[in-house]
């Protein structure tokens, strides 16, 4: 038997990447800043996003959100209390959002009428890192109860992020949480990344975060 090698050189996620590129063009054409929020389950993505949506709306910004979970629309209902349009994406077992799910759930929304679109990904620090959703900014969140070494344990996600948000930085930090070490570890995996230390309870770091969003939105 003789064999033949056929060179393919094809990206395995090419279909996703191609659709993400189309979405990115649509976001740009609509002038909407799109952020993809990723973290473990329980980091506080929803609470952080609730605060962000509410606050941006108070300032007159036009915001919307898509939120991914395996099941339930609990998060969408929580976020909708901000008054922003919100849609839930149930993945029914799939561990990440992909570009096709986003495309489908944007149906009927006029992107040109939005300033910001937030995509809250499925709580998972592994799989969502491979799937481009066409976002301008990927934000990785880390809560103080998860341990300072999370960036070292999940380097693929932290390395792919554009900004990091440390959540639950309440005045009474959990015993043993080493703030400096957490910052050092994030910087070790993604040197130079913009880091926000936040608490939705005390308001820590939130003005700075909003300033960052407004700055990024302004240069679209």
């Amino acid at each position: 038997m003789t064999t033949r090698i056929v060179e393919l050189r094809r990206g395995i996620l090419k279909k996703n990447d191609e659709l993400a590129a189309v979405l990115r063009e649509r976001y740009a054409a609509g002038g909407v800043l799109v952020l993809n929020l990723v973290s473990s389950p329980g980091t506080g993505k929803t609470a952080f996003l609730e605060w962000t949506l509410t606050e941006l709306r108070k300032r007159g910004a036009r915001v919307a959100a898509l939120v991914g979970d395996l099941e339930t629309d609990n998060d969408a209902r929580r976020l909708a209390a901000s008054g922003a349009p919100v849609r839930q994406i149930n993945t029914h077992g799939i561990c990440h959002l992909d570009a096709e799910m986003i495309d489908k759930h944007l149906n009927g929304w006029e992107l040109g009428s939005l300033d910001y679109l937030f995509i809250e990904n499925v709580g998972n620090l592994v799989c969502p890192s491979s799937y481009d959703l066409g976002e301008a900014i990927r934000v990785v969140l880390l809560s103080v109860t998860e341990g300072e070494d999370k960036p070292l344990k999940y380097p693929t996600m932290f390395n792919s992020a554009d900004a990091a948000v440390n959540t639950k930085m309440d005045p009474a930090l959990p015993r043993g949480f080493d703030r400096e070490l957490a910052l050092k570890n994030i910087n070790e995996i993604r040197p130079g990344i913009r880091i926000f230390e936040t608490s939705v309870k005390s308001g820590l770091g939130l003005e700075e975060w909003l300033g960052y969003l407004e700055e990024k939105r302004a240069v679209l």
Partner: protein
Amino acid sequence: MHELSIIASIVDTVTESLAPYKGARILEVRLRVGALASVVEDSLQFCYGIATEGTALQGSKLVVHALPVVMHCVPCDADVELEGVQSFRCPQCGEPCFDLRQGRELEIEAIEIDDMVEETA
């Protein structure tokens, strides 16, 4: 654990690429997987047998070529290979590196097929 979705994409792509080689049997599928691609070879191999069953890829071998992370180091003015993914600093000068040159690849490099049939396209 999205390796099953990854294998499903591989099955689709390889099946499509077989169109010009009617009746060919696939012996091997070769991947290039970067250290930052978020996939684990063991899981890929585990899913491969299951997800290729009943497809043109059934019985073929999956070969994974693992690629290390390569960063561009500005002070050294060179592309440098990292030993792992625990520190994104230049192994030569110790400065942080910002510019990724290799490591996120997740692609099908080539397939090996038997050559019993003539190329039809």
